Each structure stands twice: as structure tokens, then as C-alpha cells.
């Protein structure tokens, strides 16, 4: 264990630490972040009203829209001078969610990651091949510094060029792989195709950024002979490192000294008891740069507080079973149908009907957009239609940062629904 004093603490000790930190972070956010002051004042809530952990339910939720509204730095609680790193997630209309980190935040973050890698079975002797994108995405750098903190070796490969990645995996003798589940699977399949699967030394695969299923873990285990684990996090509360699976694979252990997690029934505005499924709501307990109180993750999961066979006593969240909104996660990238719509609707050559089909082939997510051709002037040359497809692909890539398969279809071939239109077909489910 990386932090045994926290990871094996008694429940009441964990709760006492959480309460102490919760009180502190609430007062801190109230004093320094205007949005929180306004939200509290609007309902007459004062930081000193938070006396027990259960009192957290009085605090208004923070939503993604709140964060977007205060883009880029309106949620920060410290002057820019104190922020030493920025990260961002993709956003619906080009406005991403930004997070800012103080030196201490980065240190805490690395600690969270080091714990998660340790519980997955890693040691300072491992060589980690990081195939997460390095950049604004929290995944690459987040894992990177956690691996360094653990004392293992980092190979910061980043994403892309699969065959080269396989060459490096083989030549550098990486023992652990950091990737999205779909990319891990794709790497394994490609290595098999290249006939080098048996030359790889990967024993651990730590996956994040998109949800995975038990079936996929099993398939990866069969193919690579490695032990796959999943971890959880989101840019809004700092990135990966919120929770991760141990060797028991009986849920993801939450770093409870840094995050307070609740499961909430949003419609009823009710905190749900242990074991019940609902939306996970997270409060950061130690963040200096951007404290977030009761962030609605939209992820559906449940919690258990029972001690784990691995010896840890921290709460565990089950794998995320779905999302409360329509956001799609494609190869680890957040995609909103509204983003696609905004691109298509801005192109006069196209009809107004479109559909989005998501599928998974060879364990890679595929996003396909079907759109009706509206402009008869394009029919003079086939090349104009090809150019149109290319233009749509380009425009979508600019907004989504993803390669999308575009299919032109005949007018009226997309089904018209009475009432609410079903634009998205997700065949992965």
C-alpha cells in the first residue's frame, strides 16, 4: 500500500478526517470563490452550518454548466501566481472545463495515482508505458507524475502510431500499460497481428478515461496475459485518481481523504444509502486551486463501505453503469450529440436530419455520422460529394478532436420520429 495509514484507517477515523477537511474546504470555497458565496447566500447557508458529514446535503450541487459559466478561471480559489498547471476537458460548444492546480494539488494528485497503481499491483520496479494523450487531457500528465511518485519508470509515449508503440513496448520491456480500455485492446490485437504478442512483458494494464466491462477485462486478460484494472476520475475534480481497483477487483477504492463521495437521487434530491445506485456526487476535500463542492458527475454507480479483502477500508464504488445525460465517451473523449449537431447544422449543403451511430469494432469505439444531402448542386461531380464528406469530417474533427466516419445518405432515409427524435444509436450497449 502506498498510504497505509489512510487506506486501512478505521471508518470512524476516515469520517473524522473527512469532516475536518469538509468544514475547511467549505469555508475556503465560500471565502474565495464568488460562485459558492452566491449559491450559499441565496439559500442562507453559512459554512458554519456544516457540522456533520451528513450536513453536506444542504450544500447546493455544482454542475458542469456552473464550471462552463465561469470559464476559464472563475472557479479558481487562488491567484494565478499560485496555479502552476492547467488542464481542460473537451466541451460541448468548444468551451472546455478548465482545472487549475497549485503545487500542493499536483503533489496530492500524484499521491492519489501512486496509491491506485500500487493497489493495482504495481511497484517501483515496473516500467510504465503511458499511452494516454499528453496535453490538456488530465490522463497523460496525471498518470505520469503518479508513476514518478511511485518511483517506477515512465515511458511517456502518448497516443497514436500503434505499430511504433508496440515496437517500444517490446524493446523497452514495459511491464505496465496505461491506456483507455479500447486502446489497450487495440494495442493487444495489433501486437497479435504483428506476431509479437509473446515478446511483450506487460503484466499490468491500468485503464481509465472510459468505462469498461468485465467482459473486456477478461478478453484483455486472455489476450495479453496481463492483469487489467480500471480507475476513475474526471477533469472537473482534478482528473484520474479519484478511485481505482485493487487486486480483488471488487469495486474501485476511493481516495477518501481527498474526495467525499455521495450517491444521490437527483429527482428526489436525496442522498442514497450504501449499495443503492444513483448519480455520484463528489466534493474535493483538499483542492487549493479549484475546490469543487458536490459536483454532479452524471455517472451512475453505487458505494460500499465494507472492508475489502485486500485489507483496505476505504469506500468502494462499483463500475460506472451509465450516465444520466446523453454524453458519449468515444475512445476516452467526451462527445455530446449537440456538438455534432452544431457542426452539421452550420453547413448549408446538408439536410437537417442526421443520426449518430456508435459501435465498437475490434474493441475500438467507432463514431459514425449519417447525414442527408440537401444540395443538388453537388451532384455535378462525384468529387464534390467526396469533398463534402471530407469537409464534414474536418469540421467534426476540429470540434470533437476525433476521427468520425461520415456517411451521406438520401433525403428522408433517416427515420422521422413523432415527438422526441432519437438521434443516437449506441450499439456498444
Amino acid at each position, binding site marked *: 500500500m502506498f498510504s497505509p495509514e489512510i487506506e486501512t484507517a478505521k471508518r470512524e477515523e476516515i469520517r473524522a478526517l473527512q469532516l475536518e477537511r469538509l468544514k475547511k474546504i467549505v469555508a475556503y470555497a465560500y471565502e474565495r470563490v464568488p460562485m459558492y458565496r452566491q449559491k450559499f447566500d441565496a439559500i442562507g447557508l453559512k459554512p458554519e452550518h456544516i457540522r456533520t458529514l451528513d450536513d453536506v446535503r444542504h450544500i447546493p450541487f455544482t454542475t458542469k454548466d456552473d464550471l462552463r459559466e465561469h470559464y476559464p478561471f472563475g472557479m479558481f480559489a487562488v491567484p494565478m501566481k499560485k496555479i502552476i498547471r492547467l488542464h481542460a476537458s473537451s466541451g460541448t460548444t468548444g468551451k472546455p472545463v478548465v482545472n487549475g492546480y497549485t503545487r500542493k494539488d499536483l503533489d496530492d494528485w500524484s499521491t492519489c495515482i501512486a496509491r491506485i497503481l500500487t493497489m493495482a499491483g504495481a511497484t517501483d520496479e515496473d516500467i510504465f508505458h503511458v499511452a494516454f494523450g499528453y496535453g490538456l487531457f488530465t490522463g497523460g500528465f496525471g498518470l505520469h507524475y503518479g508513476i514518478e511518485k511511485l518511483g517506477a519508470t515512465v515511458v511517456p509515449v502518448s497516443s497514436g502510431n500503434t505499430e511504433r508503440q508496440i515496437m517500444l513496448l517490446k524493446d523497452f520491456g514495459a511491464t505496465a500499460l496505461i491506456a483507455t480500455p479500447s486502446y489497450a485492446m487495440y494495442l493487444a490485437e495489433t501486437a497479435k497481428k504483428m506476431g509479437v504478442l509473446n515478446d511483450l512483458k506487460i503484466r499490468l494494464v491500468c485503464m481509465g478515461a472510459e468505462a469498461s466491462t468485465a467482459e473486456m477485462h477478461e478478453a484483455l486478460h486472455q489476450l495479453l496475459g496481463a492483469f487489467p484494472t480500471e480507475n476513475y476520475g474526471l477533469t472537473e475534480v482534478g482528473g484520474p485518481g479519484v478511485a481505482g481497483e485493487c487486486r480483488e477487483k471488487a469495486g474501485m477504492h476511493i481516495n477518501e481523504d481527498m474526495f467525499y463521495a455521495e450517491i444521490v437521487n437527483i429527482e428526489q434530491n436525496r442522498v442514497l444509502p450504501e449499495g443503492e445506485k444513483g448519480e455520484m456526487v463528489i466534493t474535493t476535500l483538499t483542492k487549493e486551486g479549484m475546490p469543487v463542492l458536490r459536483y454532479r458527475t452524471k455517472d451512475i454507480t453505487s458505494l460500499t463501505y465494507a472492508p475489502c479483502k485486500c485489507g483496505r477500508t476505504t469506500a468502494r464504488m462499483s463500475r460506472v453503469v451509465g450516465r444520466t445525460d446523453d454524453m458519449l465517451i468515444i475512445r476516452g473523449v467526451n462527445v455530446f450529440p449537440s456538438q455534432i449537431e452544431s457542426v452539421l447544422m452550420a453547413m448549408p449543403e446538408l439536410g437537417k436530419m442526421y443520426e449518430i451511430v456508435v459501435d465498437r469494432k475490434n474493441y475500438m469505439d467507432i463514431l459514425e455520422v449519417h447525414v442527408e444531402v440537401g444540395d443538388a448542386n453537388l451532384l455535378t461531380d462525384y468529387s464534390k460529394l467526396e469533398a463534402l464528406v471530407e469537409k464534414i469530417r474536418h469540421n467534426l474533427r476540429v470540434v470533437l478532436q476525433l476521427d468520425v466516419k461520415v*456517411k451521406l445518405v*438520401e*433525403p428522408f432515409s433517416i427515420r422521422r420520429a413523432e415527438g422526441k427524435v432519437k438521434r443516437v444509436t449506441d450499439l456498444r450497449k
Partner: protein
Amino acid sequence: MLVKQLSVFMENRPGRLYKLTHALGKEGIDFVTLSIADTKDFGIVRFIARDNERAYTILKNEGFTVGITELIGVEVADRPNALAEVVQLMEESSINIEYLYSFVLTNHNTAKILMRVNETERALRLLEEKGIKLLSEKIL
């Protein structure tokens, strides 16, 4: 003198060509020419109907994306190298032929060539200068 051709967007999946041809057939409209190239996901069906204007209206009403394109039509003797001579003429003047198709009517001893080029006006002048017989829709 140009020949009007209809162009219809079509997805490459079963039943689509039938839908198009039947839409015109049941209205008693004859095809004079019809050309489809093999493509992957979608293509353009190009044709000339006996009554292009009616065909256009019918297809529009049926919900097809249909456009009108003007082509150069020439008539050459039905003998070897006749097509090559026309192509050569375009080539020498650096006119690019975007697509071309030809057909022979049964009771004629001439072949008809329909083509779309990047510089229509110049191509027409050249053909006229060479005395190559140009087609209009009526001759079809």
C-alpha cells in the same frame, strides 16, 4: 448546344435504384441514357429521360436530391478510333474530361458521346471548329 442530364444522389444499398427507375417507369417516362459508376457508400445516378422536366418534378416530389447538369453531346461515326479522336481533341487543348459515357441507338450507324468537361465553352468551340456534330436534347 448542350444536353441536359439529371443527376440523382443515391446510397449504395439494395432497392434504391429500383425506387428511382420505378418512380419514373410508372409515370411512363423512358430513359434515353443511364449511367452509374461503382462506388462505395454512395454515388450519383446520371441519366437523360425522354421528358427530363417531368422526370425532374417527379423525382423532386418523391424526395430525391436531383440536380440538372449540362453535358456536351457529340455524334461520331460508329467505327474504331472515333472516340479517341474526340478525346484527343480535348487533351491537346488541356481540357479535362470529368466523366464521359457513350451509347449507340439501334437504328443508327453513329455513336453518341456525352461528356462533362471542366471548360464547356472552349470545348464546344473546338468541337465546332473541327466540324464534329454536336447533339441537342431533341436529336436524342
